[in-house]
Structure formats: C-alpha cells, structure tokens
C-alpha cells in the first residue's frame, strides 16, 4: 500500500526534473550540432540513424573551436581569479562584520545594523554611474581591484553572517575564552569560524557564483580584452548582426562545469549554511 503511494510522488518529481532539464538538454545537443543543424532541429538532428536521429552529424567541432579560436585558457584563469579572490575576501570581510554586529554590544550597533538592513533595499542600478566615476577618481579603472573592491562588502553577506552568528555562537563560549586570556582575533579564528563553517561554505559558494556569472560589471570596468573573464567573452559571441550559436553553447557548457563541481562539493553545507542564516535571530 505504501509502495503504491510512492508512484505519484516519483511521477511528480520526475516530471519536474525533466522539465527543469530540458533547457540543459537543449544546450548539450546544440553544442554538438553544426550551425546548419542548429537551425533545423530543436534537440537532435533528424536522420536515418538509430531512433530516427542522425548520429553521424553530431560533432565536436564547437568544442575544438572553443579551444583554438577562443582565448579559453586566459578567460578561464581570469574568471577563476576574480571569482575565488572576490568570494574569499568577501567572506572574510562579511564574517568579521557579522561577528562585530552580532556578538558585541557597543554604542552605534543598532544604528549600524539598521544601515546594513537599509542597504539591502538599495537598487544596484542606482550606484552604477556614481560608482564608475568613483573608480575612475581612485584610478581603479581597468584593474581587477576596481571589480573586486566594490564587491567585498555586500550588505546581504553581513546580514547573513550576523544571523548565523546569533544562532550558532553562544556567548558563554566567548566569555570563557576571554577569561582564559585569549586575544580577540584568536577567539575569532579558532572558535567562531569553525562554528559558522556551514555559512562560510554557503556564502563562498554564493559569491563565487555571482562573480563567475557577472558579465556587465567586468565589461564596464575592464578596458582590455585579455583581462576579461569567461562570462564576458561568451556574451560577446552574441553579436549585433550575427550569433555563433555553436560556440556559445559549448562555451556556456564549459563555463558551467566548474561551478557545477563546486556545488557538488559544497552541497551539504550550502544548504545548512543558508538556513543557519534564515532562522529568525
């Protein structure tokens, strides 16, 4: 009886899974087709082969072109650099900030907390123009610092870490450590950080993903083609008058692969981390 009740459950899950995967299937099959086949068939090219599919027309040429015509190596290095450095430093800054706001009772704390909350609401587009001018005034245009520095202090991150600290770091632990005479930073790195490991993993993943897929910011700040990350170079394949679909598909696949692997590794703590910041605090 119980076994039967599972059938509709699995049916629903599988249906949704298939619906979710259709675009990915499209991406995969498109990357294996020539430009001509791309325009004449949605998934696999029709033909005389097994199941009515022209298997012989599937080709790896798009991937080969990706590695030869396209500065894949350099672009990937740029992407890895930007994403990993941004996420590492941002996580550190937000963890410290969240810790400061959550675990210390000091004058100005409420005001600061409200400031951070208010910043959550600011539409990013409002800051583009003045932000760009600021970067220019500091001489940070056409440099990675100009991209990384503004991204190191997202209000969202401080908010999440504050919640996580409030929920998972008991004050008694901190007090006893202070009684033992431990320095503040030692307390932070040896006690607090391990306690919020899940949130750290989650936030690293989120900021890595954001920086990896960001393609408007780098285009505006970086002025040389060699320093552009993968997201931009792939977007540029989408020209005004013509589009190289094959390269875009294979390029997108290649650019998803690293973040997919990261997600697989960080899956469990991503989930527990996100929710440690979501429970009311």
């Amino acid at each position, binding site marked *: 009886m*119980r076994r039967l009740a*599972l059938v509709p*459950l699995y049916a629903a*899950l599988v249906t*949704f899974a298939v619906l*979710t995967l259709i*675009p990915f299937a*499209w*991406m995969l099959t498109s990357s294996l087709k020539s430009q001509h086949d791309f325009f004449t068939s949605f998934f696999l090219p029709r033909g005389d082969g097994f199941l009515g599919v022209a298997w012989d027309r599937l080709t790896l040429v798009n991937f080969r072109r990706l590695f030869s015509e396209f500065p894949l190596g350099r672009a990937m290095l740029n992407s890895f650099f930007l994403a990993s450095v941004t996420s590492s430093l941002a996580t550190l800054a937000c963890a*410290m*900030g969240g810790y*400061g706001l959550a675990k*210390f009772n*000091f004058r100005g*704390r409420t005001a*600061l907390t409200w400031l951070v909350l*208010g*910043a959550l*609401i600011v*539409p990013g*587009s*409002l*800051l583009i*123009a*003045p*932000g760009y001018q*600021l970067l220019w005034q500091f001489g940070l245009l056409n440099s990675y610092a100009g991209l990384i*520095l*503004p991204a*190191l*202090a997202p*209000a969202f991150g*401080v908010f999440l870490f504050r919640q996580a600290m409030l929920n998972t770091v008991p004050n*008694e632990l901190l*007090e006893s450590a202070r*009684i*033992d005479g*431990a320095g*503040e930073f030692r307390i932070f790195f040896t006690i607090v950080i391990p306690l919020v490991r899940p949130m750290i993993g989650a936030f690293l993943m989120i900021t890595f*993903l954001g920086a*990896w*897929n960001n*393609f*408007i910011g780098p285009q505006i700040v970086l002025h040389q083609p060699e320093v552009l990350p993968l997201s931009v170079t*792939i*977007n540029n394949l*989408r020209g005004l008058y013509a589009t190289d679909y094959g390269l875009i598909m294979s390029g*997108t696949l290649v650019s*998803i692969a690293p973040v*997919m692997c990261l*997600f697989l590794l960080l*899956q469990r703590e*991503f*989930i*527990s981390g*996100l*929710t440690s910041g*979501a*429970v*009311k605090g």
Partner: protein
Amino acid sequence: MSRSTPPLASRGPRASAPPFPRWAPWAFTAPFLILFLLFTLWPLAQSLLLSFQQTFGPKSTAFVGWSNFRFLLHDPLFWQALRNTALYTVGAVFVQLPVALGLALLLNHPAVRGRAIFRLIFFAPSLVGLVFVGIMFAQIFQKRTGLLNAGLHALLPSWDPEFAWLDEHVMPSLLLASVWLYAGFNMIYFLAALQNVNRELLDAAQLDGAGPWARFRHIVLPEIRPVAAFVVLLSVIGSFQLFELPWVLLDNSAGPANRGLTVVMYLYQTGFLVGDLGYASAIGWLLGLLLVGAAIAQMRLNRREEN
C-alpha cells in the same frame, strides 16, 4: 595555553569576566564598514544629489530641485513600470514560492531515494548565467517553432501556435522563466526548514487521525514560518529589483507597449539610454522609499501576528 579552568558558576560575580576591549567591535566591522562607506554610501549620496539635477547634456548638469520627482509622480511610464513590477512580485510570491515549497515537500518525503540528485537537478538553473537564459528562453517562447508553442500545439491541436508569449503575455512568460530559474534555490531553504520540523509532533498527529493536509496546515506551516517569512522577504526585495531577466528575455528592450517594463529597467533606460542620470536617480530613490515602507509594513504585520 591549556590551564584548566574552574566552571563558570564557581568563578564569582560576572564582574570578573573581562569585557571585550573597546577597539574589538570596530576592528571587526572596519573592513566591511570602510568598503561600505566608499562603495555604497558615498555613491548613494551622490545619487541623491543627482536626483535633484538634470544631466542630459554631456558635462553640463543643471540643478532642478524637485522637478524630477514631480514629473515622476505624473509619469505614466513610471506607474506602468510600478504596476508591472508589483504584479511580478505578487506572482513570484504566490506562484514561484508555492512551487518551491511543493518541490521541497515532495523531496522531503522519507521514502524518496536519490534526494541528492534531484536536489542538484532543481538547483542547477541557478548556476547558469543570464546570457544563456536569454538565448534559451527566446527560443522556447518563440511563435510557431518555439518549444512551448510547438509542444502545446502537438498536445492540443486547438492551441494557437502563434501564441505570442513575449509579445503579448510578457508577465506570465517572465513568471514561467523565473520559476525555472529560482524555484530550486528557494526549494533549498524550504527543504532545510522542513527537515527541522519536529517529527514527533507529526507522528502524534498522524496517530490522532489527522489527514496530510491538516498536518501540513497546523504543524508544518507554523514550524517553517520563520524561514518562509525570510524567503518571502528576500523574494519581495529581489522581485522589486527585477531588471536583467526581462531585459535579456525581451532582447534589451521593455517589450511591445512597455509590457515588460520594470522600475529598475526604467531607471536603467532613463539613465543610460536617454542619458538623464538625474531622473534615473530620482526613480531609484522613490523605489527605495517604497521598499522601505513595504519592509516596515511587513515587520509591523509580523509583530502583530506574533502577539
């Protein structure tokens, strides 16, 4: 340093616990604060100034006082954008979130195998960049040959294969795309919340004879309420800032008759396409004020419901 310490209780009055040094909180919040001041607050202040100016002409800005805001309040395009954005937000909260919750409920069933795979599949859309989303959904929503129209026409011959998803029914198309994109992400929040629901309560209710719907309404829902409220808040804030998804779906435009115009899109258009950064800043500030009002209202509502 591994001196054994006596338990807290026997250590005497609290006054013996050293307070944290005065510089500590500031040292920890400093990196964030400095960057926040520089890259968020300062440009924000600039934009406030800008909102009282006109910057059409290159290099020439003129101070116009409240004129931007006055025009904004009578600007039919702004109100249309606000309407579209509000509609989308309502849709996101009442369609996308229930889908996410539903998926989480399905996945949370104890007898489900392969949970990790399903989780990955549902989360995968969040990993893709918006460039790909734009190209792909343009394909899916196309008239006649798009996947949706072709598929629906094959299933129901009476379905008009020229159903103009992105020309006439922009909001529903956007909602569909956003469900695909974001339901998985929100599902993760709900999953974790569901896993924290007290199993004993559920088992007791089941023994008492409560059906699945009653169990859901009276036990599960209240227990996941905090997470749900958080997710709703995030959703509302994110929905009000909607810009890149419709921009990319409608091929860098607001769609026919501005059906896909959202507030932030209008901000972008006025600021960067027309060149009036002043008016754009006014739009942004008005949006900010509205959101703050909405947030305060939601907090009051929450507090009242708790009491």
